[in-house]
């Protein structure tokens, strides 16, 4: 956004007659297809979901008394639902932080100080597991996390290190978190990679010539230049972690319900109205988190520049 506004303030004597519209896309009309499509496929169904969340469950005992706010009252009072919401938040925040760190490690390793671009095999190796789908990731982690599997041993070694007792890994929050991080990492990498690659090599050279060591150059020059990519990647990571379903289902299971698996369980157990209420909460939660996050990062950026 900084770049855009600075472009607008360029002196352009020849274009004075149409100062706003010389910029392609300045009218904002580009939003139209998105508004149309989102209206049909998101807004309308979302409103229907909200409506449903206020209704009485048509599949339950019809003699039960129902007031419109009952589902929400229950969501915010029953420990079961509160737990699910808190777990959702916890898992997605951990996933965001971890996946950003991991993808940063990968991207920096692949791009920093390289004159030639890395072969696309490297990138492909990252997205190949994802291309086969989240189910395969779940399958892979199941293979690692089964009793006496490698992942099982590693997790329990870490647990022992911190004094926790040994135990099952599959069907735990740990497994679900790791699986979700794995699902998110390639997307974070794909977001971050083009930005990191575009960092001009000359800038790094200048820094190095001035005597700054490579690692310090990385920290003070390279990373700050990746900031826009980091912002985009972390928002995508957060959003994907919040709405992750398959990994939560197969690695966390019923014992570690997050909002998505809770919703799935509710609609499969004749509770569509409660499912609607839980979805509405997830939507609001997600939008609020993404908005707040975007704002915080934008403010941070404004302060730095």
């Amino acid at each position: 956004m900084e770049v855009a506004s600075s472009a607008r303030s360029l002196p352009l004597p020849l274009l004075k007659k149409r100062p706003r519209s010389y910029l392609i896309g300045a009218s904002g009309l580009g939003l139209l297809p998105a508004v149309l499509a989102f209206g049909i496929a998101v807004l309308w169904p979302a409103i229907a979901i909200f409506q449903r969340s206020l209704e009485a469950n048509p599949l339950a005992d019809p003699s039960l008394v129902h007031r419109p706010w009952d589902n929400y009252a229950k969501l915010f009072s029953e420990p079961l639902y509160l737990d699910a919401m808190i777990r959702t938040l916890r898992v997605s925040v951990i996933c965001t932080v971890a996946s950003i760190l991991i993808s940063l490690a990968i991207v920096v390793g692949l791009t920093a100080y390289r004159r030639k671009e890395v072969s696309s095999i490297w990138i492909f190796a990252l997205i190949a597991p994802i291309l086969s789908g989240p189910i395969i990731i779940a399958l892979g982690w199941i293979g690692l996390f089964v009793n006496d599997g490698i992942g099982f041993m590693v997790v329990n070694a870490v647990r022992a290190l911190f004094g926790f007792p040994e135990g099952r890994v599959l069907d735990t929050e740990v497994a679900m978190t790791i699986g979700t991080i794995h699902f998110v990492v390639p997307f974070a990498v794909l977001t971050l990679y083009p930005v990191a690659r575009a960092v001009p090599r000359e800038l790094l050279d200048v820094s190095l010539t001035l005597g700054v060591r490579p690692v310090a150059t990385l920290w003070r020059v390279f990373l700050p230049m990746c900031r826009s990519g980091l912002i985009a990647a972390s928002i995508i990571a957060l959003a994907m972690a919040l709405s992750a379903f398959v990994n939560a289902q197969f690695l966390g299971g019923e014992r570690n319900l997050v909002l998505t698996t809770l919703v799935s369980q509710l609609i499969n157990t004749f509770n569509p109205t409660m499912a609607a209420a839980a979805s509405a909460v997830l939507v609001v939660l997600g939008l609020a988190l993404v908005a707040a996050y975007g704002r915080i990062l934008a403010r941070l950026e404004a302060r730095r520049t």
Partner: protein
Amino acid sequence: MRQRGWTSWRILRALSLFIGYGFVLGPVLPVVYNAFNASPIFPAPFEGLTLEWFRSVVTSEQYMSGAIVSIEVGIGATALALVIGVCAAFAVVRGPAWIRGGAATSLLMGPIVIPQIVIGLAILEAASQLSFRLGLAGLIIAHAVFVSPFIIRVVAGALEVQGSNLESAAMVLGSRRTAVLFTLTLPMLRPAIVASAVFAFTLSFVNVPLSLFLSPSNLRPLPIVIYQEMINTRTPVLAAVSILLAFVLLLATGLAEKVFRVRILQ
């Protein structure tokens, strides 16, 4: 470079790549190993080498037709999402202030955080109320909407970095706006567009929750076939299918890069 400090950088780089790639590729190991393991249970200790599971996939009509449906939906959804996403990216970066502000931007991210499993059902219901029978087109539109936020993010990011100085220069020199758009702005955005298209296709190709309710009865996308198998029978066939998938995509990308002389991922 005479400079000191390169050793520590090299160690750091090796370490970070090892950890990063180890994490991403680690879970592939049990999948590969079980795909060749003769035991019909997943996961299981080694019982002998077999290619049976691969044969099962290749001769299975439902996996093959599922792959075709997924490719169709993926291409359709990516094309549609590119239109939605690239247009919106321009509005987000260069539009009037009310769009550039945080609210509109986060609303555009909305589809990502909406639980797809429910929205899929709700779309089906909405369409039925309008007496509109959703076919593959419904699935494509839904996929497009839900992958477009990623395109918006990536393309908007690139557009911001790119700035508009070159466009201004071109226009100052007398180029028409459409010419600038198609010969300058979009070609410059090409890496971002291609990257985000790969991204979008991938997301559509692996989507489960939307397709769960929106796929037409006889046209099940591959992830749905796999998902149902995962629930019904957890077998090494699933491992084999994933390996084949990754392998075919690797081959296709490599071939495309050679044939079309593009760098798809870079």
